[in-house]
């Protein structure tokens, strides 16, 4: 039986979950993803802490939500709890309540004072693009210095040169491309803009057929650190990214 939800609004513990995000919920927007996760947390009976005020909401923070149509093996969410629980047990309980296509890959406890911090720590994310012939269509684009597309956001359309945001591209095969790009709250490249660039600069009319999966997300663990790490590294994931920025 699940424990009752603690009524206090006090955050006493913060658990960070790494999730696989797949299935039908790939096709919904951030607010709906958030709601799906809130409901799973409530079904799992985790003693989630609620926000104060007129309309209390469960306290959870996504590191960097992937957009509509993007699946992920590196979806991170920090959940504030009102009562201390065992992290592994919480992960199990959550896992059995998650909707189709979503799964817990790992869990770790983070300091309570960092409960809402993670968004500002994100620097880079890695994607896998897959479609027949994607590599030979995409790689030539990188020779251009200017890949300006119109970014539609918050009801406005603005030009954005996405080329400087792409750090590294590697073709694993003709049909599979690994792409590393800047991400986070300061500079961010939305993956749908890659599809737009494909259409616009490579005349690829079937660009939208490309499947996009986020493979990894990298954060700067503390101010002044010289390497980016994964928020939760799974077994065998040992590498870091050298970083000399802020």
């Amino acid at each position, binding site marked *: 039986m699940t424990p009752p939800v603690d*009524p206090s609004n006090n955050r006493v513990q913060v658990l960070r979950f790494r999730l696989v995000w797949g299935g039908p919920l790939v096709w919904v927007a951030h607010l709906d993803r958030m709601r799906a996760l809130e409901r799973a947390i409530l079904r799992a009976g985790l003693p989630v802490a609620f926000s104060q005020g007129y309309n209390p909401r469960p306290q959870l923070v996504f590191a960097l939500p992937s957009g509509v149509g993007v699946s992920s093996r590196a979806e991170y969410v920090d959940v504030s709890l009102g009562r201390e629980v065992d992290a592994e047990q919480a992960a199990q309980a959550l896992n059995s309540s998650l*909707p189709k296509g979503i799964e817990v890959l790992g869990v770790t406890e983070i300091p309570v004072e960092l409960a809402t911090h993670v968004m500002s720590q994100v620097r880079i994310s890695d994607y896998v693009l897959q479609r027949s012939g994607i590599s030979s269509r995409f790689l030539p684009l990188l020779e251009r210095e200017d890949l300006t597309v119109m970014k539609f956001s918050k009801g406005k359309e603005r030009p954005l040169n996405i080329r400087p945001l792409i750090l590294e591209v590697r073709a694993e095969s003709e049909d599979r491309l690994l792409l590393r790009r800047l991400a986070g709250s300061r500079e961010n490249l939305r993956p749908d803009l890659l599809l737009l660039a494909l259409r616009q600069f490579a005349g690829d009319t079937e660009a939208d057929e490309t499947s996009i999966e986020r493979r990894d997300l990298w954060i700067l663990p503390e101010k002044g650190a010289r390497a980016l790490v994964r928020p939760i590294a799974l077994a065998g994931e040992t590498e870091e990214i050298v970083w000399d920025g802020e």
Partner: protein
Amino acid sequence: MSQVELTAALLRSVALPGRYVGGELNEIVKPDENAADGHRLLRFALCFPDTYEIGMSNLAMRILYDVVNREEELAGERVFAPWTDMVEAMQKHDLPLFSLESKRPLDEFDCVGFTLSYELSYSAVLALLKLGRIPLRTAQRGESDPIVIAGGPVTYNIEPMAPFFDVVQIGESEEILPELLHLLREHRVKGNLSRAEFLLQAAQIEGCYVPSLYDVSYLEDGRIAAITPLAEGVPSQVKKRIVADLDAAPFPEKPLVPNIGIVHDRISLELFRGCPRGCRFCQAGQIYRPVRERSPEQLAIQLKQLLANSGYDEAGLLSLSTSDYSRLPELMDTLFSVIGEDKINLSVPSLRIDQFSLELMERISRTRKSGLTFAPEAGSQRLRDVINKGIDETEILEGMEKAFLGGYAGAKLYFMLGLPTETDEDVAGIPDLVYKMLGIHRRLKDEGHRLRKPEITVSTALFIPKPFTPFQWVPQATQSSLNHKVSILRDRLKSRAVKYNWHDQETSLWEAVLTRGDRRLADVLEAGLDAGIYLNSWEEFFDLEIWRELMERFGLDLDFYVYRERDRDEILPWDVIDIGVKKEFLWREYEKAIRAELTMPCGDFCSFCGVQHLAAPICVQGAQAVRASKKQEGASL
């Protein structure tokens, strides 16, 4: 089985792709396997002729999804109306309409059933059949085509859509649908019955109306001459069928939890069906008779299961008149003990403005103070008596005073315009009432109470006479008289504390045609489909002029349906249906309305509406009253 493939490109090309992918929590996808009897499952498409967000908010959809899938031999899957961008994308990719569960094309189902809640969705029904590549008319369908059925409150007069449905359920589908689908399995799966044999047998199931087995003939002036059954065994009137015991009725313990936000995104607890009030404009108050309640114990069990299985944090209490639930204080105690300390909100739709309702609001709004909504319906006491609203001005004003003192800024007030016998004076009663409320606010303030700044919203809808109500014979108010009345209100409701909203007239006019319409309108509806009319209940897609033109093309007159007064003895298109409540009772109520005489609500009093004969063991109050009157007769003998 074929399966519609939803490619990434297709999904990226539409707004809200989450509408089309299915896969929600508690979705049921039955494998393509045989039942224990060695025959395959009957495949039923449960369709709602509006968007996912609206259809998923419909309680009947959820109940029927559960009812059908509980049966081992039946598999029910959902179909909603795709938004216009998706329709375009489907046409571009040459895709048929499909179900969310298995992505099966609509024409590969054995039965396609529509839940109909409003007349303006008729055009979407036809469009969905077309998108599903199913012949529109029952007369055009052959042995291999699906059987197309319907249910829901508007089916009590389904005549404008009669030629398109093979079978129409009259009453509460959880009672009718399993029996109908098991019979259909004999035809579609086992091959024991031809289509015609199935239809004939279906017509003999209680609560099933097979329109093609009735002939409707007309007089020269357009009125109906006769409605005649065409085969032996087909009843001359189809009796509605209802659930006797709501506690024993199946309900979905594991609710579908949508992946995208929907209109009513919460748990629904159905307190009772039917309404004891008998407001004379209200169709629901007649067709859902008699009142049947769920027990507090059963509702508590449901709430507990639904919360645990959904993760929702809000539950809505549904009924036609919540404060009339007979054990309300007990129910509240029980529900709050289930909720405990969890952050769960309870919500209720519009309430009567009485002491009881305010206490109820006070209790349920522990965490959130939502707005108050009241429906006085008419501005003057005389007119409220005409419609048998059964609430007087003193009660309304006392209720409002308590609301101000309880910390509410005001309320949303709902009224109707164009009610029978309505005069300008009655209409002027609306601002009079509002200013009396504001006067109370001023007085309370002068007395030193600390109140919020007053805010009163007035909304008027246009009265549409509905079948099976005491007003089913009356003409609808003309557009010019309604415009005049709206302008009275606009002039007089100009206070800064008052906001006035009024409802569009054009959609109301088309609804008025359809709600009391007959079979001849089917041609018009079909022509509407050819003219590209689809989501007609969305104002952005509604155009009355097209309907006017099409009616003219088929020699039909809008005024005949909307503005004509019917005689007491006229055969009405819906006379083929028996809702239990008798036509004589409705006429009696109409005459009382004209005299502004009240009829007491069901309870200690029985008005002998007729439903006590349809459902004697269920209509407890009716049965008691019948017994009492017999005793009295006995005593006087």
